[in-house]
């Protein structure tokens, strides 16, 4: 069996076991709940048990069926997608410290470059334009409370 199929099958099994363990914990907490016969514990055990069983069935089924090969992907395009995930992660980290507007400008600078724009002038103009438009629409017009950041709290 291919390792990726094994991981796919093990995830529901592990989640299911976590559900069962949590259910047991809740049951042993022993609260008197006269109005709730099933209670959160038994429900959790039920869902966890079902999930584990289906996960095991999947593993057995895949073992018999053999491994489905994933579609082949262009390496450059995959790289592009990974850069996008990287940009998203950095943006999420940055937003609390740099504030919404600055981090969004940085995010757009990176991502427009990643998706294929070459001229930094165009990238810069598009990034600043898009970020300010976002701020005006969501922060100013729709009154959303956007993160101000700790670096420049007085600016935005």
């Amino acid at each position: 069996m291919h390792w990726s199929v094994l991981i796919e099958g093990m995830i529901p099994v592990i989640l299911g076991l976590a559900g069962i363990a949590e259910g047991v914990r809740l049951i042993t907490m022993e609260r008197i709940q006269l109005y709730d016969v099933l209670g959160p514990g038994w429900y959790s055990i039920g869902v966890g048990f079902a999930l584990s069983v289906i996960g095991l069935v999947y593993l057995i089924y895949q073992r018999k069926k053999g491994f489905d090969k994933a579609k082949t992907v262009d390496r450059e395009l995959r790289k592009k997608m990974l850069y996008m995930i990287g940009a998203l992660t950095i943006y999420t980290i940055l937003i609390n410290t740099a504030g919404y507007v600055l981090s969004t400008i940085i995010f757009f600078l990176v991502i427009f470059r990643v998706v294929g724009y070459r001229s930094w002038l165009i990238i810069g103009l598009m990034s600043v334009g898009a970020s300010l438009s976002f701020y005006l629409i969501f922060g100013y017009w729709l009154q959303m409370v956007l993160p101000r950041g700790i670096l420049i709290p007085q600016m935005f």
Partner: protein
Amino acid sequence: MDLLNGIINVFTLSNITYSFVGCVLGTLVGVLPGLSPSSTIAILLPITSFLDRTGSIIMLSGLYYGAMYGGSTTSILVNIPGEPASVITCVDGFQMTRQGRAGQALWIAAVGSFIAGTFGALMVSFIGPGIAKYALKFGPPEYCGLLLFSMTTIITLSSASLIKGLIAGMVGFFLTMVGMDPLTGTPRLHFGYVGLTRGLELIPVMVGLFGIGEILSSAEEGVGQIYSGKLGKMTPRGEDLRIGLWACARGTILGFFMGLLPGINAALTSFFSYDLEKRISRHKEKFGSGVIEGVAGPEAANNATAMAGFIPLFALGIPASPAFAMILAALMIYGLQPGPLIFIQNKDFIWTVIGSMYIGNVILLILNLPLVGLWARISLIPYKILGPIILAICLLAAYSPRNTMFDVWVAVGFGILGYIMRKRGWPIIPLILGFILGDLFEGALRQSLSMSSGSVWIFFSRPIPFVFICATVVTLFITFKYLRRVPKEVLEKEET
């Protein structure tokens, strides 16, 4: 009378604007490959929470049925379905374009969509309240039966791989257990982390799985731009017109009544309609070479199904397709409980939304006939502009409901999960349905069992839950029987 009031209510500047914006966005979503109505609704949900409740639902509904209109445009012009429901339209639609008959194909698709959409709106107006009246007798066991029945959707939407769908659905159920238990408030599965005790919010999960996940997948697939060509003559004449309109009528009836069943979505009914047209045609061999009924039937069917789904949604609270699951989530976010009481407690709201469907169909006809050339040109917008902007909106959408960065991380995490699931052929819709229905099911099940002191007999001794259990078995049987005929590619496309 209620319907008339509803239609009158739509004629305010704000409601007409919401309907127009929804229809425009829907057509845009339909035209642009790589965007689906469900993901767009997921992305727009938090933003609409700043808008008027009725207007927002009018807009989201318009977006959904508008996408069915728009989806045909790229199928016909460039052989790329904007929507899973328009996959089958490519077969004859694109052949018509190659023969210089693109205008006729677009005309019949728009007119068929209009006929089906208006018929659907009429049926929603007259059937919906009747069903809702009956559903007023529902208690927890009845709801439990109903929810079990609506879970058959999970099975239907997993038919490319049933076991993967079941696992995804169960994971959705599992995720609803994170946080406070709905009846006693006991914190579960929080692993000592405060953020998790509040549970996972629906919006970041949906935005991640649909919005971010879809953009990441599209980036890897290299979705680019598409059309350059001429439309030719618009209105079909003579025999073509007659055949096309009859196909529209058949597609409408088939699409509407099949669409009432949970799990039978627009992609499936458009395929069934194509299958029907081919079976009854005197020239079966011509299908695939550009016959007008191969476009008219499926396009009418997918629009009729789109409308039919509003009946179980409004009257019973059952989402018949992923996009309806999003609209259901929207209704819940606005504090509305879809189900029979909505026709009594929120009379003005519901009839205005239903009234907007008539207006929306007229708006869409105008948008899709005289302006079809414009939509064809819009499909030229490069994805490298749209993708980054949509990603930034996704993160905002995840942040806005509770203003916490925890939700943004949840969205990014689920975005990566959504991407992996798409790549590895795991259906996403069952996961989201499990997540939406899990809480409701748990509440109804536990209340029912408390009523019967723990006996499951309560579900068999009362007629309504018993009927739902039987209906579940029958639906599963029908689903399995008919899904065998649907090509795997259609099912896989619908899943994602």
